[in-house]
């Protein structure tokens, strides 16, 4: 069974905030919190970890454990994007490559709730695609063992 409990927590937290402005600030707080509690190592900010096509720079690294589960870490120098990429990488960590491919646009939409402009929504879709690509083992730091997971 795909464990989406962390994703559910984010989605529910956002759904509980019924004011758009507050949801926006929630993302900002999240971005700041990641930066404070779990700063992204400077040496990971390298070209191979860059996700291309974003307005602000986004780095994502992928660590695959012995069970073939992906553990992502992401970062952006822009706080808001850092909040979004942090939420995305945390929400969809712990999944196998195959499980990652079952995540859909609708999952991501639940993390938006209109608080974000289209451009950032598109950015989040691009992040999902990137995580799925890493899940297929195409990424720089992804393990090759996951090729078989995906048909």
């Amino acid at each position: 069974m795909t464990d989406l409990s962390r994703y559910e927590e984010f989605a529910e937290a956002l759904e509980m905030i019924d004011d758009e402005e507050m949801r926006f600030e929630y993302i900002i707080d999240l971005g700041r919190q990641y930066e404070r509690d779990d700063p992204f190592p400077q040496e990971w900010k390298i070209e191979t970890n860059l996700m291309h096509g974003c307005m602000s720079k986004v780095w994502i690294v992928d660590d695959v454990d012995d069970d073939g589960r992906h553990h992502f870490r992401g970062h952006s120098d822009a706080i808001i994007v850092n909040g979004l990429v942090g939420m995305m990488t945390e929400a969809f960590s712990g999944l196998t490559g195959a499980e990652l491919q079952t995540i859909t646009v609708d999952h991501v939409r639940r993390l938006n709730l209109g608080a974000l402009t289209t451009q950032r929504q598109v950015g989040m879709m691009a992040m999902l695609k990137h995580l799925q690509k890493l899940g297929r083992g195409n990424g720089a730091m992804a393990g090759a063992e996951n090729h078989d997971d995906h048909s």
Partner: protein
Amino acid sequence: MTMAKVATDRIDQTAALDVAAARADFPILKETVYGRPLVYLDSAASAQKPRAVLDAVQEAYEKRYSNVHRGAHRLSQLATDAFEEARETVARFINARSADEIIFTRNATEAINLVAASYGRTFLAAGDEIVLTEMEHHANIVPWQLLRDQIGVVLRIVPIDDDGVLRLDSLAALFGPRTRLVAVTHCSNVLGTVNPVQEIVRLAHDHGVPVVVDGSQGIVHAGADMQAMDADFYAFTGHKLYGPSGIGVLYGKQDLLERMPPYQGGGEMIDHVSFAKTTFKTPPHRFEAGTPPIVQAIGLAAAVRYVSALGMDAIRAHEQALLAEATAALEQVGGVRIFGRAPGKAAIISFLVGSLHPYDVAAVLDRDGVAVRVGQHCAEPLMARLGVDGTARASFALYNDGTDVEALVKAIHKAKRLLG
């Protein structure tokens, strides 16, 4: 047409701009974003359209639409007349000697590419030098790089000083026996710097070198008189001048245009075609292959009439007052760094707020209904010169007023509070 009439009635070149009346001419400014009034400070990317333009476009489609220069029927004649009248309106607006010097393109980018491809490949050769500046938009860099890769021309770059002023001394020193072309922006879309193009043209002509001016911002904020400026080519884009998207203009001196080969081939631009040999029309039609942006040209002419009626001097005076007000207000905020301090600059302010990421700042501003641009503004080499990854940019137009400045400053304070 009624609004165009109203605008014409307002003609009084000495009068100050009636901003409240002008604002009312732009329907989109009544829109709200996230439930807040729209504060549009992104006109340097694309300006909003007055009712006169919207009406002209609508009327063209409703009453006079057909293809141009083709049908032997009444509608085609009306459409052709309106299209060619638009050319004349634009020619008068920039004081060209003749409407034959006005080529309609899709945008400024296409206009510059036309010069690079047609003039460049005909009159330039390997080892010839093209002079550009550090403050160019990619639209006035990349076409010349393509030419470099095709025929081996050499690009020489004029630096700017720390205020964002072009180093004319360096420009003068760059002229050599192989200098064949100068391509310079009239006004920087990042710094607001208005370059002394007339002086630059004189200097270049003293060396027998023609000049291409990117007028995308200059035509809006500084106005352009082709006979006074004496530029050989002047390119601009309709959508920044309150006109529709999809229409640009290349002005070219007639004797140059006549010596230039076509840019693209197809219908409209030919005189006679056989499989053995094709002859081409004279300029400007030689450079307008295929069905042109007919209604967009008509819309652009309406925009030109609109700003002319308000008075370019009145618009400029208004923008300058706003620029001074906004600059002073931003300096009060604390920690705001403004890029571009050239004397006489246009109402374009690129800035950073402390160490905040400009993307974050723009996102908070956006939530307050304040639209600014963020990023590299299609000017990566300039960003490198400024030593930044990007900036936020507030740009002002004829319809902005003091309340927009207040909203901007208030939102920046909020950004500092939320993000700092």
